[in-house]
């Protein structure tokens, strides 16, 4: 291996309650394309945030060597200064500004106290040529497609004499042509001596472009493979990525697949006017009584959009298709209607759109079903306390009082409050979006046990999850979602992590 441009040694990064990176070491040779792969939550993004200074020196342990020098980045500016540029999934461009303004934002070319716009436009044009993008630099960024915006991000990095370019899932939002274009650009840049780290879930792409591949799993480096020899296959990668044993934390139960169909979704499509594209295409699936249906897939594949579009469509997608709930065709125009019909949705982002953090446990639990504790619009305070106490006991919410503010609870207890809130609406169908994200193993186990109890009582559950062991451990059936489509349905006996991964990265 040639001389490394980057060496990260024994990096450990902890968040409260979670070890996101555990003694990770990572070497990147100068002038190579190095791919970083692993499941969601394996620590890839965290590692890149450590590298780029998002997590400043001192908030992690370990050493970073770049260009042979020990680096102690305090922020992104420091890492940019030595020639590291990171391009995130969520693009950091300002839509209302022009291409050339964006390229030199934060790096303005000055003449005296003012900006030299002529020079800016000239240099922007050169940067655009380097990424082979043929647009007028005076175009507003919002008028360009995602693929072109991505290239502008790269042009922006190149304008700063970048030595190491980091791309976090660069093709996840791109169509095939744009992806192919981007990959060939990366090869081009390699010829010009730019080193590149690419995080990707699309293993075909990874194999097509990588010189070296490093696999992360559960915050640890599993292996670093030389991809040029041709011995590395998708199968090998998947095995390394998911290779852990399934822990025995999933309660045993009779698998259910014979109940009557509770929810039937047919030819369901959704167009998101904000994104200007279809987020769901011709999706059909069903859920039976007493069944846990797993919706597997990668982040951004459209699972949450699917759940939301069924649950009253609060984001205002243009939807098309049929939903039949308990034998009756329905069309919910507000979550209120979905709730009234017996659907509950526990959101992925508890803090963002699930709970009201400044209110107490009691108020959060009753919010979705205040009518259940009120007479003629007046809340019966005693009934509310009783309901909240019931759920505190049955869900084992650890808190000194139900008048505790939800913002002060741990992730696991917040999730239990969320579950309590949705169980109190007495649903027939419970949609759980990443039900165990960011919570500890003990609370996970409690939630799995609860889910088991609920389906035994006749509830139906749709479980959206990025954690394959969880999908396999809990589901009766698994649907795999990829790019807004259902790419496969597997009964649990036939589902393996490898097959799911294959269908999800398809």
């Amino acid at each position, binding site marked *: 291996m040639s001389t490394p441009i980057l060496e990260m040694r024994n990096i450990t990064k902890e968040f409260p309650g979670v070890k996101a990176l555990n003694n990770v070491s990572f070497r990147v040779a100068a002038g190579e394309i190095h791919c970083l792969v692993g499941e969601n939550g394996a620590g890839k993004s965290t590692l890149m945030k450590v590298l780029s200074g998002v997590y400043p020196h001192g908030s992690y342990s370990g050493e970073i060597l770049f260009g042979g020098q020990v680096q102690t980045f305090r922020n992104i500016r420091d890492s940019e200064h030595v020639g590291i540029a990171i391009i995130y999934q969520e693009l950091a461009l300002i839509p209302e500004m022009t291409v050339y303004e964006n390229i030199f934002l934060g790096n303005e070319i000055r003449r005296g106290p003012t900006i030299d716009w002529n020079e800016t436009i000239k240099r922007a044009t050169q940067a655009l040529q380097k990424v082979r993008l043929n647009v007028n630099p005076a175009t507003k960024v919002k008028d360009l497609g995602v693929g072109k915006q991505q290239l502008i991000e790269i042009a922006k990095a190149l304008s700063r004499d970048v030595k190491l370019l980091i791309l976090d899932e660069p093709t996840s939002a791109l169509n095939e042509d744009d992806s192919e274009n981007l990959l060939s650009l990366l090869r081009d840049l390699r010829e010009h001596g730019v080193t590149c780290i690419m995080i990707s879930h699309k293993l075909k792409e990874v194999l097509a472009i990588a010189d070296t591949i490093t696999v992360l799993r559960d915050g640890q480096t599993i292996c670093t493979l030389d991809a040029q020899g041709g011995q590395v296959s998708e199968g090998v990668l998947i095995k390394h990525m998911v290779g852990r044993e399934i822990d025995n934390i999933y309660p045993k139960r009779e698998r259910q697949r014979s109940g009557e169909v509770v929810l039937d979704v047919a030819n369901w499509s959704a167009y998101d006017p904000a994104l200007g594209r279809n987020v769901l295409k011709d999706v059909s699936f069903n859920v039976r009584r007493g069944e846990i249906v797993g919706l597997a897939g990668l982040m951004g594949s459209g699972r949450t959009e699917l759940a939301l579009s069924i649950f009253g469509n609060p984001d205002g997608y243009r939807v098309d298709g049929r939903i039949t709930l308990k034998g009756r065709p329905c069309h919910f125009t507000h979550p209120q209607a979905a709730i009234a019909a017996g659907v509950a949705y526990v959101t992925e982002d508890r803090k*963002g759109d699930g709970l009201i953090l400044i209110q107490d446990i009691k*108020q959060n639990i009753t*919010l979705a079903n205040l*009518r259940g504790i*009120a007479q003629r619009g*007046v809340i019966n305070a005693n009934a509310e306390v009783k309901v909240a106490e019931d759920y505190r006991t049955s869900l084992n919410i650890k808190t000194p009082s139900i008048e505790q503010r939800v913002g002060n609870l741990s992730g696991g207890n917040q999730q239990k409050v969320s579950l309590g809130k949705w169980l109190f609406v007495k649903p027939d169908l419970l949609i759980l979006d990443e039900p165990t994200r960011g919570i500890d193993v003990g609370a996970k186990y409690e939630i799995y046990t609860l889910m088991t109890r609920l389906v035994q009582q006749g509830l139906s559950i749709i479980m959206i999850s990025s954690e394959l062991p969880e999908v396999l451990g809990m589901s009766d059936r698994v649907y795999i979602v990829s790019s807004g489509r259902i790419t496969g349905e597997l009964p649990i006996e036939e589902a393996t992590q490898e097959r799911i991964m294959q269908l999800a990265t398809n």
Partner: protein
Amino acid sequence: MSSVADSSKVGAPSFVANLQKVLQQNIREYGMFVALFVIMAIFTITTNGIFISSRNISNLINQTGYIAVLAVGMTLVIVIRHIDLSVGFLSGFLGALAAIAMANPEVIEGGLNLPAVVVIPMILVLGILTGLITAFLVAQLGIPAFVATLAGWLGYRGALQLVTARTGTIIIADETFNALSNGFIPDIFAPDTGPLPGVHKLTLILGVLAIILINVSQINDRRKKQAYGFEVLSNDIFILKLVFISALTAGITWIMAGYNGLSWTVVIVLGVVIVYDFVTSQTVLGRHIYAVGGNPEAAQLSGVNIKTITYVVFCSMGMLSALSGILYASRFKSATTTAGNLFELEAIAAAFIGGVSPAGGIGKVIGSIVGALVMGSLSSGMNLMGIDISLQYIVKAAVLAVAVIFDVATRNRGR
């Protein structure tokens, strides 16, 4: 000092330590009451007691009423993360319409010669309708409330000048109407007869009833909480609290009974506060309002209709603007071309002083009333002291800034 420390038993904290703890924990809730108390005490001293005199307090409340009702409505608007800049001139405009509706057509063009009992509900309904317009712009068309209501501010200002352009100030002759901000509830005994001559007997009786009611409800509330095993105040502190509230109510009653008794303004403001406090703290609607303010996305996913809530809150604001306009016109027995100028900012200031969070989701109606009283006391007290108006603004600015700094500081500590 050491003897005090020795006397406190281990495990059972002393009364003083207990009190300290309770005050520290509830510093935000009690803070504004303490501030109001301190401000009133200072002015009482600097004016040799004139400030606290029955006549002055009565005047102070009558002058604060029309801001106080606006502050109540503004509280809800800010709680759901909006703002309403149009309420000042809206109240002026609606006040002028009320004056015209009651005027003699021979004196004022367009006068309808209607009695107050007809005009008042009419104006209130008109207020609700203006709220519908604001809500339509904000909820339906998605225009930021700041901009939508800034347009309202301009529009109602123009409308006010338009309807008063010919006549200038419109004098209101209707005695019933004028009594709203100048009159007092009747007494059961003729004044200066019976026991305690010169004191308003009905006011005293109502005060005593209020004290009994407050004590009974507080004791019930505490029992209920104990039954559920919630943490409650320790016995001695609870008694202290009851004594304090009772003494305060008694003091206010005594002061007001000393000068004509309860004014109609007090009755109206109290009515508004009781209704709004009930709605915000006890009803589904109130819970939905705070949910929308606390986290709109979560509220929507929980089945709360954000549009409906926005309509309700702006309509209530419109109605209270109308009430404010009525109280103001009644106070000066006339409608003027500049009525309502800057009311909106005084109401917003009162709400912030009263602990409403600019980020939304937090703030009580009672707090905003106290905030309005703080502002009113500052005006009244400094006027009595003969302080120049320019300095008055600066003092008010400092109080507003300190109140918000205090709020932010205590909020951060609670995290």
